[in-house]
């Protein structure tokens, strides 16, 4: 009996309910999306028709012109590229803020630390949609920022902030910052900063302390943070929709449009599978880079 009281020592079947739940909740929708991506549009209205077709994937790369000719269409690939670019910038920006912030948090007194963690999680208490609307109020032409800029005489007239790539980025960085801070903080909190003193005692210069002692111990947190920010930021649709004004589409918007307005479910499903592939490849690469080098690869 006692042997079963250790974690992981119970009978195999005990994990069956959790496993079944995961298969249904994670696997089910994925299988459905994969299936839809190989079917064709319903002739009328919403949904799909059950005939196998590669039209969904074909449309990602190839355009059928009205005169019957076909040509390569880079439009959607550009949107995927733009999404990756915005997500990458978001990731780097959150990293630059999160690393010093996490280290600062982790080196405070224990009581103050838990308060700081609470502060980082406060945004989660409100819906992302509401918080993104709040940014619209802040960034619009007669919003807080522009009122001050004009009020203090820094600019004669409001600067265009809302409905630009910049405001999309501000929204993305704002939304995803906690997802970068929390895993890096948890690594930094586990890190014993006396190890840095030990390194100094053994003759390490500041740069060597960072590269040889601090970085290897923060790396797992940074890798987790990159995954938690890069993946959802690539597929984000709320921020480009509301703050970017739908002008610079991200792949998330495109997918959402296919399922809603355009009613092209196979194309939307194919785009989703493409997104999954692209993100998967990026993650594998970033993980390989993170594991191979001992020196900081993602931070300067």
């Amino acid at each position: 009996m006692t042997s079963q009281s250790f974690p992981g020592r119970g009978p195999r079947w005990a994990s069956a309910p959790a496993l079944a739940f995961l298969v249904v909740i994670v696997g089910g929708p994925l299988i459905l999306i994969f299936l839809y991506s190989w079917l064709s549009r319903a002739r009328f209205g919403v949904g799909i028709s059950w005939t196998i077709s590669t039209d969904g994937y074909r449309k990602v790369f190839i355009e059928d012109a009205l005169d019957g000719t076909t040509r390569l269409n880079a439009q959607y690939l550009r949107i995927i590229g733009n999404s990756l670019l915005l997500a990458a910038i978001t990731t780097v920006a959150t990293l630059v803020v999160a690393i010093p912030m996490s280290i600062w948090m982790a080196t405070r007194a224990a009581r103050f630390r838990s308060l700081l963690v609470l502060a980082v999680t406060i945004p989660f208490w409100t819906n992302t949609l509401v918080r993104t609307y709040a940014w619209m109020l802040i960034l619009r032409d007669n919003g807080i920022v522009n009122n001050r800029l004009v009020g203090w005489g820094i600019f004669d007239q409001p600067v265009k902030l809302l409905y630009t790539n910049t405001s999309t980025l501000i929204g993305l960085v704002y939304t995803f910052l906690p997802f970068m801070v929390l895993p890096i903080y948890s690594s930094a909190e586990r890190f014993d900063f006396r190890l840095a003193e030990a390194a100094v005692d053994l003759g390490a210069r500041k740069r060597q302390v960072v590269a040889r002692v601090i970085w290897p111990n923060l790396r797992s947190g940074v890798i987790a943070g990159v995954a938690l920010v890069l993946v959802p930021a690539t597929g984000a649709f709320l921020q480009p929709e509301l703050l970017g004004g739908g002008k610079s589409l991200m792949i998330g918007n495109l997918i959402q449009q296919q399922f809603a307005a355009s009613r092209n479910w196979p194309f939307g499903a194919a785009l989703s599978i493409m997104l999954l592939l692209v993100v998967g490849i990026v993650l594998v690469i970033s993980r390989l880079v993170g594991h191979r080098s001992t020196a900081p690869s993602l931070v300067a």
Partner: protein
Amino acid sequence: MGNLSIRSVSKQFRAPHGGATLALDDVSLEIAANECFVLLGPSGCGKTTLLRCIAGLENPDSGEIWLSGERLDTEPPFRRKVNTVFQSYALFPHLNVADNIAFGLEMDGRKRRDCDAAVSEMLRLVNLEGMDKRVPNQLSGGQQQRVALARALAKQPDVLLLDEPLAALDLKLRRSMQFELKALQARTGITFVFVTHDQDEALALGDRIAVFSEGTIRQVGTPRQIYDEPASRFVADFIGETNVLPLIRHGDAVEVAGQLQPASSVIGATDSDAVALCVRPENVRIDPAGALSATVSSAAFLGSIMHYSLTLGDGTMLRMNLAADATEQPTVGSSLHVSLRHLRAVGP
């Protein structure tokens, strides 16, 4: 090579709420090359701060530190031929034993593969052969301690600083490590500066001991000097067991527990700053001709010795140790006469 000279070093720490503590108050010390020097004192007395000043992890507010005739305290830590064994060991959790030991050598610009010979020599020195691929959390406390020692010694420092390195080990292991450290120190010829709050450890390890209290040195001497000739009530009380009695002078005589004794029978009684009388429990002897009469209030068997609490005629409590195999062992409640040997008057 390896003699340390600490000259009037002071260090103050500002508390977050305004106050300040003087961790080191004008401390001067001469530590000879190849000496095992122990800094002994209660926690928070400044001994670790002095160690950190020598290592370069703290900068003294004033004063100078010299090593082998060269100014040390103005050099950055990486240029000091001084290494530390930390109380927490501070092993790098992401590196295996061999890489931990090679770390300091790599910091000197050596390639990792050129360190292998030095690493295996160090592993042999601390009896950890075959452990080179383990990571720190796979090691016992004693093994981690040895790795920390090997890592610090690998750089062949002139001075090795040890900050309570044995504090986390159990008593038996601590005893055997004390002997190993002493042997290691003799073999390597490196100057050891050893910080501890454990008086037994200080007596066992030190060629000389400096007793610290509140940022100042109270006494420096060999273990025997410190034990037999404590300069103050603090030192007498801190090292070993001591009976402390009030010092009351009556002209040429000294009153001991209500009995007058000639001042000449008390060591140091003529010192003007003496404030108390000290006598070690083993120097309280049963003596039918003794001037002090006492009642035995309790007895305890401590293995090699018997420990007695005596109540003197005027109510003063006195501790007495007898060899456990001594023929005459008084019973609790019995009355007897005692005399005090090596009665010493000391300063505060």
